[in-house]
């Protein structure tokens, strides 16, 4: 089915076209959203919103880019908006907890590593990776996720992000450098923490 046929089918609310749209793009969108949000339930909800948006704004699709690019652009924008909203929510809840003066006096820095082994386990490694990717600037994060997780070509990423090919290369290079720097710091800190923990345990 060509992009034109697909778009006209969506506008006419054709049952077969809608089924084709969902079976072709829905899971891809869920996966992309998951790479941004790191939560499958949120990713599924977001993918539903993306599909509804496609249905509602298909009439406005100008055809300047491919349908695939347009759908991914909607998914990326929605994911970034979701993260922004979540950050604001987190900030407010943090402020609330400060004003309420809850008993939770523990901060992430004070938490001792649960494992004594100098090797970080998979879950923690994943947490560190997700945290590091989330700390990247939005455009670097988007380029990195689309390239490394979605295996997209630079040209496709450039179309989705509406930037030049050179910009994508630059963004990816910067993202990798930032990621490397941050991961080195994380893993080094983590192994130092673990060693200190071992030492204190030995002294006791």
């Amino acid at each position, binding site marked *: 089915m060509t992009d034109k046929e697909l778009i006209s089918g969506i506008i006419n*609310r054709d*049952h077969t076209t*809608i*089924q084709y749209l*969902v*079976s072709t793009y*829905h*899971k891809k969108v*869920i*996966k992309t959203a*998951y*790479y941004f949000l790191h939560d*499958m339930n949120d*990713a*599924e909800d977001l*993918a*539903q919103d993306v*599909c*509804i948006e496609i*249905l509602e704004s298909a009439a406005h699709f100008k055809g300047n880019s491919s349908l695939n690019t347009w759908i991914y652009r909607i998914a990326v924008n929605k994911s970034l908006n979701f993260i922004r909203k979540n950050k604001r929510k987190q900030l407010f809840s943090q402020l609330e907890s400060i004003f309420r003066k809850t008993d939770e006096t523990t901060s992430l820095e004070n938490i001792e590593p649960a494992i004594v082994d*100098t*090797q*970080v386990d*998979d879950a923690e*490694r*994943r947490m*560190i*990776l997700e945290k590091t990717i989330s700390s990247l600037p939005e455009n670097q994060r988007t380029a990195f996720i689309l390239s*490394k*997780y979605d*295996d997209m070509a630079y040209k496709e990423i450039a179309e989705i992000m509406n930037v030049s090919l050179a910009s994508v290369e630059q963004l990816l290079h910067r993202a*990798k*450098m930032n*990621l*490397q720097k941050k*991961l*080195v710091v994380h*893993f*080094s800190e983590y*192994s130092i923490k673990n060693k200190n923990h071992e030492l204190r345990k030995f002294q006791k």
Partner: protein
Amino acid sequence: MNCASFRSSILAYTEQDFHSYSVRDFEFHSHECAACAHLLSEFRLTQEIIGKDKSIEPNPFADTRMIQRLENLRERESVWIYLFSLPRFRPLYLSFGLVLAMLLGVFLGLEEGVLPAVNSHNNTDIDLIRTELNVPDMMGDDAILFANE
């Protein structure tokens, strides 16, 4: 190769984006330095996580749920479209629209009509007081008379 340059080129090494002479230096350092070797293994394991995440599969019923939701949306839309497009209901919508427009006109007319009514009431009060006190009306014919004099 020292630890700093090793740490700044871990990703390039793991992604095989390295010259062969640099690879030799890199590997030599990782054999020599335990901390850097540990870091390298952590990087490799972290990259494996990306590989695992790539193969993650969403809920198999996600598509069915999505289709169902879109179908519901389509049905809801089509009910409204059907109702609005029925020829036998068109006069009803038209008359409803006309009644609404008339009501709006009456409402706006009332809004504007309130002020003059209050003003005229005030004017009669003023006229009454003026006649009682024998004060000439400067705004009416008297004003012209006074002007001529």
